[in-house]
Structures are given as C-alpha cells and as structure tokens.
C-alpha cells in the first residue's frame, strides 16, 4: 500500500504547477480588483483627496464582510457564483473564484495601509504645485508606496498559497490537495513531507522575490 515519492513524482510536479497557477491567477485578479479598491479607500476617506463619506462607508463595509468570512466557508458559500462565472464548481479554475473573493479585499486593505504610510506633506507639496488628483494618485501616492505595496503583496501571496491548500475541497488540486488526500487521509507520511517541503520552498522563493522587489522599488 506504500506509494513512494518517486512513483508519485509526476503527480507532485503536476500539483506544484496547479498551486503556482492557482496562486498566480488569483493574485493577478485579486490585484486588479484590490489595488483600485485600496486606492478608493484612501482617497474617499475623511480628509482624502476625493473625500466622500458614502462611498468610503460602502466600500469599507463590503471589504470587512469578505474579510470576516473564513475561507473554508466562503469556498462553499459562493459555489453558485463560481458555477455562474466559470460554468463548473470543481477543478482549478473553480478554485480561483473563491480565492479571488478571499484575497481581493485583503489586497485592498494592504494597499490601503501602504498608501496611508505615504507622507501627507508630499501630497500637499504636489497639490501646491498644481497637480490634479489623478496625478497625485499615479505620480505621487503609488510610486512612493510601491516598495511597501510589494512587501504587502508578498504577504497576500503567501496567504494565497495557504488558502489554495483548502481548494482541494472543490477538487482544485495543488500541493495542499495532494498533502490532504495522500498524506493525511492515506497516511503516506513521505508524500506529506514532500508536499510540505515544496510549500516551504515556494513560500521562501515568494518572500525572496518580494524582498528583492521592495528594495528595488525604493528607488525609481
């Protein structure tokens, strides 16, 4: 009944690819939604560039709602939406939908906190120069916060690697799925160790890339 790591190697490689794919696509989509959302949270807040109480309150509540649902519940709760968007509720593509719902609000919060760190004086200086609000967002706030955003997105990415392990529930595949179905449910300790080691390696690499980018982005 023992299956060796070697025998299962193709399956492990496949699972690694699935994890990278799931995390990559989810991160991309989460950024596409989360970054504008984070910017909106910053500029519409009190004393923001485009202060608007109603907009801020609505966005704030939506983000909080999604941030408070545990991923495993979100995964199941939005199954109908998933089916509507990708046509199926199982497989890697189906796992991406809940992962995006989970991480986009997280990215929004992280981007928000990075942007809030930008020195208010620099924004004031840009206003005094006659900059438009859009110029301030794209040429002051974002460039100045980029290094911090890179570090924060690293956190989001690692969070996604963790969450993607649960995607096994919808047959999403990936290393987490492999660890659960072989290592946990079938007591294949070798497989368990191999997958965990691979996850550790992925997280290490992600963090390294994040640190490198953050350092580079401090000087544009």
């Amino acid at each position, binding site marked *: 009944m023992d299956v060796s790591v070697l025998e299962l190697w193709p399956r492990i490689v496949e699972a690694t690819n699935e994890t990278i794919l799931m995390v990559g696509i989810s991160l991309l989509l989460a950024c596409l939604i989360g970054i504008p959302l984070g910017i909106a949270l910053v500029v519409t807040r009190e004393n923001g560039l485009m202060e608007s109480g109603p907009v801020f309150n609505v966005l704030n509540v939506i983000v909080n709602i999604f941030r408070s649902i545990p991923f495993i519940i979100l995964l199941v709760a939005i199954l109908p939406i998933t089916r509507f968007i990708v046509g199926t509720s199982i497989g890697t593509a189906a796992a991406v939908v809940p992962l995006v719902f989970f991480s986009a609000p997280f990215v929004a919060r992280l981007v928000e906190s990075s942007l809030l760190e930008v*020195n208010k*004086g*620099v924004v*004031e*200086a*840009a*206003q*005094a*120069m*006659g*900059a*438009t609000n859009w*110029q301030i967002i794209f*040429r*002051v706030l974002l*460039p*100045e916060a*980029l*290094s911090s955003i890179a570090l924060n997105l690293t956190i989001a990415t690692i969070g996604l690697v963790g969450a993607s392990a649960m995607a096994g529930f919808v047959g999403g595949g990936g290393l987490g799925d492999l660890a659960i179905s072989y290592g946990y449910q079938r007591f294949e300790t070798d497989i368990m160790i191999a997958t965990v080691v691979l996850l550790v390696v992925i997280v290490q690499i992600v963090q390294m890339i994040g640190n490198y980018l953050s350092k580079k*982005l*401090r*000087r*544009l």
Partner: protein
Amino acid sequence: MIRFDQVTKTFEHEGTSFKAVDQVDLDIQKGEIFGVIGFSGAGKSTLVRLVNQLERPTSGQVKIDGQDMSRVSASELRNIRRDIGMIFQHFNLLETKTVYHNIAFPLTLAGTPKREVKKRVEEILEFVGLTDRANHYPDQLSGGQKQRVGIARALATSPSILLCDEATSALDPETTKSILKLLKKVRDEYNITVLIITHEMNVIKEICDRVAVMENGKVVEHGSIFDLFSQPKHPTTQKFVQTVMNDEIPESILKEVEARHIYRVTFRDGSASQPVLSNVAKHFNVEVNVLYGQITELQQTPFGNLIVELQGEDEEINNALQHLEKQVIIQEVKADGR
C-alpha cells in the same frame, strides 16, 4: 501682490469651532521678503496656506494681483499654483526620486517637453549649488541640501511668489544662515515675492523687509523690521525682539534712574555707524556715559540699543537731547524698565 482682506479661517472639529485665522488684513508688495512670526498655534501655517488655497477662507478674500483666489475655477487654480512655489519645514521631497527628478517633477506635471525640463533643471541646480548631487536620492542628502532641493523644486516653474513654511525650523543655525542667504538670492535675482512663516526672530532679522506678528489668529502688529525692532508695541512682539536683542535694562541701572538722566538710544537706518554720541559730547557741555547696550545687524545695516547716561546742566542736557532726536530714537528710561 498678495492681499488679505478681512480673512477668517475657522476649523470645525467635533462640534467645536476654532478660529485659526481671525480677520487678517495684510498687503504684501511685489519683490519684498515678508515675514510672519508667531508662536506655534498662532495660525501662521494656515495663513500661508490660504495664499495658494490649500486652505479655503471661511470669510474674507485673498487676492493675488487683484484676483480673488476663492472665485477661480479648479483648473485656473492649478495654473495659479504653478506660479506660487512652496517650501516646507520637512522638505516633502519624493523619496523614490532623484534630486534631478524631484526638481523636474512640477515641470513634468505641467507637461513641459523633456528637453526644456532638462535645461531648466540644470539651470536651477546650478543656482542652488547642487549640480553634483543631481543623481542622489533625498535620503543621501543633509537637511540643508534637502531644503536646497525643495527651493529648486519650488523655483522650477519660475514662479512669482515663494511661500516658505518654517523652512529653516528643522535646520541647525549654520545651515539656516546659508538657506536664508539663498532665499535672499532668490528674491534679488528673480524678483520673487517671498512670504516667510517662522517662529524664529533671527530669520526675520536676517532677511525680512517687513514683518507681521501673529497671535491667536490675529495680526497684532506689523510694519518694517526697523520699526518693529526699534519700537515693538505689542507684548508678543517685544518678546520676539528680546529673543534676538536683549533690551531689558539691568536691575542695577533701574535702581538709579530716578536720580540720574538715563536714556535709551535706538539706532536705526544706519545711524549706528555714525559717531552720534561723541558728536553730542563735543558740541554740548555734557558727558555721555554708556551703561549698557547691544548693536546687531538688521539686513546688513547696524541696528541697536544703547542705554546711556547724560551728565551735565539740565539745560545742556535738553539741548543735547533735541539734537539727538534728529538722528536717533531717544527715550527716557523709567523705573519700570520701559
């Protein structure tokens, strides 16, 4: 050039309102260096922000060249702001950009062609003496150098007004001097109107032509610096003047004022460089005894206070006083020290 007309700015905060600027009238002339001094919380930072409308007045008008700033459209305001440079206490430079790109920033915002930007930035780098630092980042510069970049950035769009918000307050005395010298050069070479906000009287003393003293949002006194230094009327002004010119009369002299003829002689408009007192001693039958005093420089002109005693017949003393009054300000010292 810049005119404040009954300007009031009220801030509302959690139900309570606070008048940061209270019915201020000021008229700042083209090409002058105008100082606004006050303790922290006096409203001077708000006042300077009313000029470029970073703060909007609650009532009253701020006019630049006769144009009411609160009536212009948003896009007009952006154009006007390009004509008003501003520098800050904490420099407010873009940390991710080089000195060159920080200075180029207001030009690129305005859509200036690259070649023109390069020409202007190099010119202005030369002016502030930072040509060799063009490719450095702000965190590689000293405070004084950062403020030079701030000044260069503010001048990039060739403005006609420069606002300085506590521009030297984060700098050491030596660096402050060099920055003030640079600001003077800005005015002298480009004929820019400079409005300086500060809590340091030596900044005012060093470069300002005229000064307004602020307290609790109000301008309590304003005038030429010679007037303010020689005859400060408001207690706050007196306090500020004393920070750079100790004109308090020592106790030992005050004790004897009743019995002796003791006067405060204030030199201004260059009279300190003339032998006023020795002339009096020569022409009248009086002895001049200098008890105490201080001479300093206001805008490269000697200025000061001397406490002198005149000894002699009453009539001679009176004649001497009449003669002195033509050249200097002379006040009898009273027992209360004023």
